[in-house]
């Protein structure tokens, strides 16, 4: 028992010795990861203008061109229409349910992820201001 443990420890130490540290990534990795995000944000843009999120053909872009006036940098914040402090995805769902007359998306639904990616992308560079009305 002791011998096999020692062998295991030695084996692991050997593996450890060859190179891998913490979160290792290269410039190519970064570019690739960024592209992954860009793809999802592009998908979000597509959904934004599609009119397919609800049941009446209205698109987010009709009231929010370039995702203007969505203010992702202010969330979480007290949202009057929800009666509580809420996160961005909850307000996105409010819009899907109300002006778009559709149904909620789960917070981790790929479409919600895409929408939030697009919204925040269009608002990049703006300082965080959580709680701001």
């Amino acid at each position, binding site marked *: 028992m002791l011998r096999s443990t020692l062998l295991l420890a030695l084996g692991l130490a050997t593996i450890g010795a060859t190179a891998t540290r913490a979160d290792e990534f290269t410039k190519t990795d970064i570019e690739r990861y960024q592209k992954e995000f860009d793809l999802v944000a592009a998908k979000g843009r597509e959904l934004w203008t599609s009119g397919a999120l609800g049941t009446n053909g209205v698109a987010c872009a009709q009231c929010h061109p370039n995702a203007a006036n969505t203010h992702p940098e202010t969330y979480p914040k007290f949202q009057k229409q929800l*009666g509580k402090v809420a996160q961005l995805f909850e307000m996105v769902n409010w819009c899907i349910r109300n002006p778009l007359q559709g149904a909620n998306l789960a917070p981790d639904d790929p479409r919600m992820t895409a929408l939030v990616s697009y919204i925040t992308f269009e608002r990049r560079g703006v300082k965080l201001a959580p709680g701001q009305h």
Partner: protein
Amino acid sequence: MAVRKRAATMLAAMLSLSNAGFANVGFAGVAVAEPLGLPPVPIPPDNPQSSDKIALGNRLFHDLRFSSDGAVACATCHKDDHAFTDSPLRTSEGIRASDGIGKKTGTRNAPTIINSAYFTTLFWDGRSASLEDQSQHPFLNPVEMGLATHEPILAIARTDPFYVELFKKAFGKTGDGVTMEEVKKAIAAYERTIVSADSPFDHWRFGHQENAISEAAKRGFEVFVGQGRCVSCHVIEQDQALFTDNRFHNIGVGINRAQFDVPRLSAEFLTAKAKGADVDKAVLTDPKTSELGRFAVTDQFDVIGAFKTPTLRNVAVTAPYMHDGSLRTLKDVVKHYNNGGRSEGDPAQVNDYLSGGIRPLNLTEQQMDDLVAFMETLTTPAYFGAKTR
């Protein structure tokens, strides 16, 4: 005396909710801490509370002598044991009709005094900016107390020994120094003590007591803040719930049936107003004018057929509903909203001036029942026994 009995009842009720979080409750119902779920009562700087004022206001509120036939007080339509309404009457009834048969009827449903201290305007159409201002008008309205002037009130206030003593203690005024200003302030001070929250809903939401309300009511709450879209006007916030936004909305009650008359009505009303007609009298005595809502007060198209959002606290015991008392039950109310602002008997098309917040909701029968169950949790225990049926 009535005042002590009132205070004792309120005190008992408040103390019976042991974890209500009250600091100290003074005599005559002067609650120092606000009940769970409500913010502090707004008190105007020129009318601070005092137990003398409150006792005075209480008596004035209940005094039948301030009417042309000696039979009507504020409490006639705002009855203490009817949750301060005249349920189940649809519209208020005032002095005896001049032919002696029956009472004069108004056009509007007497709203509850409970929590009226939180309104920024009073009356269904907001024509008074304060409780003080509101209190003077029913005395002079032909379908309420029917007095020609306030003089009879002052005559009594300046001579009745009870009033003489209390006006002196409350305001330091005697004789002709006692004016309607003091009367109004006293009535308002009393009304500011008629405040209630601590309902099962408050204990569930703000007191974090999971079992305070039923599962149906919890589902109903989700409808209230979700598909029912109630929360934007009947405001609930993170740590308090006024259940009113203090704004005016046309939700299609009454106005739907009058919609084709609006052009003529509005023109006629404005002509009359220009000639000096009194808005207070017009809206309470003429049902068609009443339907114009806040338009009669501000002359603005935006508020044609618009009425103030009432609080939903104690709504289960303040039937019937709406400014004209036309909806008998909470289920009827929910159906009206579910239909996008119309009820049975209304024309097929909703009126053109409908608030932008009103639309068909597509609630299921279950959701509607749950919503009613939720609203029934908004009653303060002190009013559970209100005789409103």
